[in-house]
């Protein structure tokens, strides 16, 4: 589904990603961990096509198609979804209006019929229940005045509605208490399936207790320093990131016991 080869990328003028190789197959859940400033969020931004982020070398293949130069809306319609670390507040644009416009843009791209007001409402209500989003959030402006938890739940609600094939969660767990974390994880797990892949970016292992990954990678200074299975996350939680400096790029966790 996603093949990243020797990816180098800049955020503005700063070189952040310095040669990333990563393959995610359909149905797999990969976790991307690493210290602050290691390039986790840059990777998410580059995948989603955020303006200001540029690929300087290497390539990103999504379903075999090179994503370079593809507009963010096109990526979204093709099934790439980024759950933002900091969902943007947009005054004056109703959440309900936004979700409907978004869903219909994507449905029409897929060749499906656009949903009318009634069908949309029925669908969104069903998804809202899954992530415990209160009804009144729909009548408010996008993310405006939402609590931290509400913003994150709104992100997962969008994911449930749009049913993307590649979900990128950028520190969705940050700032959440344990109950909110469980709700979010339930929503995410509901989406797991053989045709859907997840890239879960996080600092902490605790989210991975709820969304159990197939693979765990550690990003350090723009490269994947270490990869392993879910036990790597537990080990990182114990040891921190400091010892990574000794690991050669691309090492397997088993090699540095």
């Amino acid at each position, binding site marked *: 589904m996603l093949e990243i080869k020797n990816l180098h990328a800049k955020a503005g003028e700063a070189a952040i990603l310095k040669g990333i190789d990563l393959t995610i197959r359909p149905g797999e859940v990969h976790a991307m961990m690493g210290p602050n400033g290691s390039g986790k969020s840059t990777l998410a931004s580059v995948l989603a096509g*955020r303006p200001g982020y540029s690929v300087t070398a290497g390539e990103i293949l999504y379903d075999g198609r090179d994503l370079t130069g593809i507009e963010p*809306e096109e990526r*979204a319609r093709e099934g790439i979804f980024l759950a933002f670390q900091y969902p943007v507040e*947009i005054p*004056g*644009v109703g959440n309900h209006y*936004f979700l409907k*416009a978004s869903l219909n843009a994507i449905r029409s791209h897929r060749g499906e019929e656009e949903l009318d007001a009634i069908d949309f409402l029925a669908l969104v209500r069903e998804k809202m229940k899954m992530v415990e989003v209160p009804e009144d959030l729909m009548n408010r402006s996008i993310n405006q005045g939402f609590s931290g938890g509400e913003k994150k739940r709104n992100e997962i609600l969008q994911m449930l509605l749009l049913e993307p094939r590649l979900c990128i969660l950028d520190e969705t767990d940050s700032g959440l208490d344990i109950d909110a974390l469980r709700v979010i994880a339930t929503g995410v797990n509901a989406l797991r399936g053989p045709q859907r892949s997840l890239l879960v970016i996080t600092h902490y292992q605790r989210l991975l207790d709820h969304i159990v990954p197939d693979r765990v990678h550690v990003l350090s200074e723009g490269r994947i320093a270490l990869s392993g299975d879910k036990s790597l996350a537990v080990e990182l939680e114990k040891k921190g990131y400091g010892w990574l400096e000794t690991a050669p790029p691309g090492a397997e966790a088993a090699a540095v016991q």
Partner: protein
Amino acid sequence: MNPLEIARDRLLGQTSGFDRQSGAAEPAHLRRLREEGRTHFAALGFPTTRLEEWRYTNVAPIAAADFRLASREHPPIARAAVEAISFPVFACSLFVFVNGRFRPELSSSPILSGELRVESLARLRSENPALLEAHLGRYTEQKSHPFAALNTAFLDDGAVVTIPSGARLENPLHLVFVSNGEMATLSQPRVLVVAEPGSRAVVIQDHVSVGEGVRFTNSVSEVVTCAGADLDLVILQRENDLTHHVSNLACRQERGSRFTAHTVTLGGSLVRNDLGALLADEGAECTLNGVFLGRGSQLIDNHTVVDHAVPHGTSRELYKGILCGKSKGVFRGRIIVRPDAQKTDAEQSNRNLLVADGAEINSKPQLEIYADDVKCSHGSAIGRLDQDALFYLRSRGIDRERARLVLTRGFAVEVLEKLPAPALRDVALELLEQRLRDAGVGS
């Protein structure tokens, strides 16, 4: 003589023909008012950009076109044409004025219930001259407003709305001012609203064009809110792109009254709106909401003055400008707090969105505070579309142009959602969206 003086004299030269038609049965008060208007306009003339009040707005294009006073002959205009532009969803009474003159055959019955009246000024001059004498020309300062003086110099017809004491109107009163005519036509709408004590009403003053001629609309509205009255006045200006539009609104607020003006400016070529509110007695609340959208080479100039003359007055002002293409916007908001006006609570904010690189805005808040125990604040901001918000919408599959439209529209929502009826909100947003699309935002 310079071109502005020539244009002034050309307009004043039209008065003799005008007077011949007016006839003899004219109340002395009206005749005197017109005389004053002529005197002031002759003295003031068309303003030049050397005047601080007109620094950013050059009225030469108005002076250059040889505008002729709209004839008293009713141009043929179909009710269907008016209804098509008026809000079809808006189930309220409709009063139609074509080139400033009342057209009863296109309008609802003037007597709505009991004492509630929407009348033409032309009719009232014989039926109720006392009402006109009590209010007409009392609130607008002709001495300092040349265009208000010009309007008054040819004062003849207009809308007179009386909301009787204690009346609570459920539905808005909709006054539609249609400008029409192929020649360079000067229309001078005139509105007087008397909100009697304890009354509550919404009045919509809607300026539209039928046909595509070059025109000049020069409107004057006078409003008085008596003790405890609560009035919302919506001024919706959506004339064609060739029409110059100058408006002057003056409101006098009596004790404990509330006045809310919603100024929505979407049309016109050169547009200047002057709005003055005088808080003349204690406990008055004044709210000025404004949205203006500039497109093409439009110039939209909003000047507001909130005059706190007495203690315990509250005023709130929020104007938002959206400027596309090569349009220019001007906002100048004065708040005056007189020496006696202790405990005044005044806030003003002007925020502007520049949608295109060629667009421009001059924003100038101005507080003049002569009392010491007051709470006053003002703010002014100029910005572009939020790039993070744009990316957020695009990352959900919404294309760039639609996202730009959605965000630009969203910028205006904060003001338009304050409109006093849901149907009005929907229509205003729809009109705004349509005009944004015409300006190339969203396509």
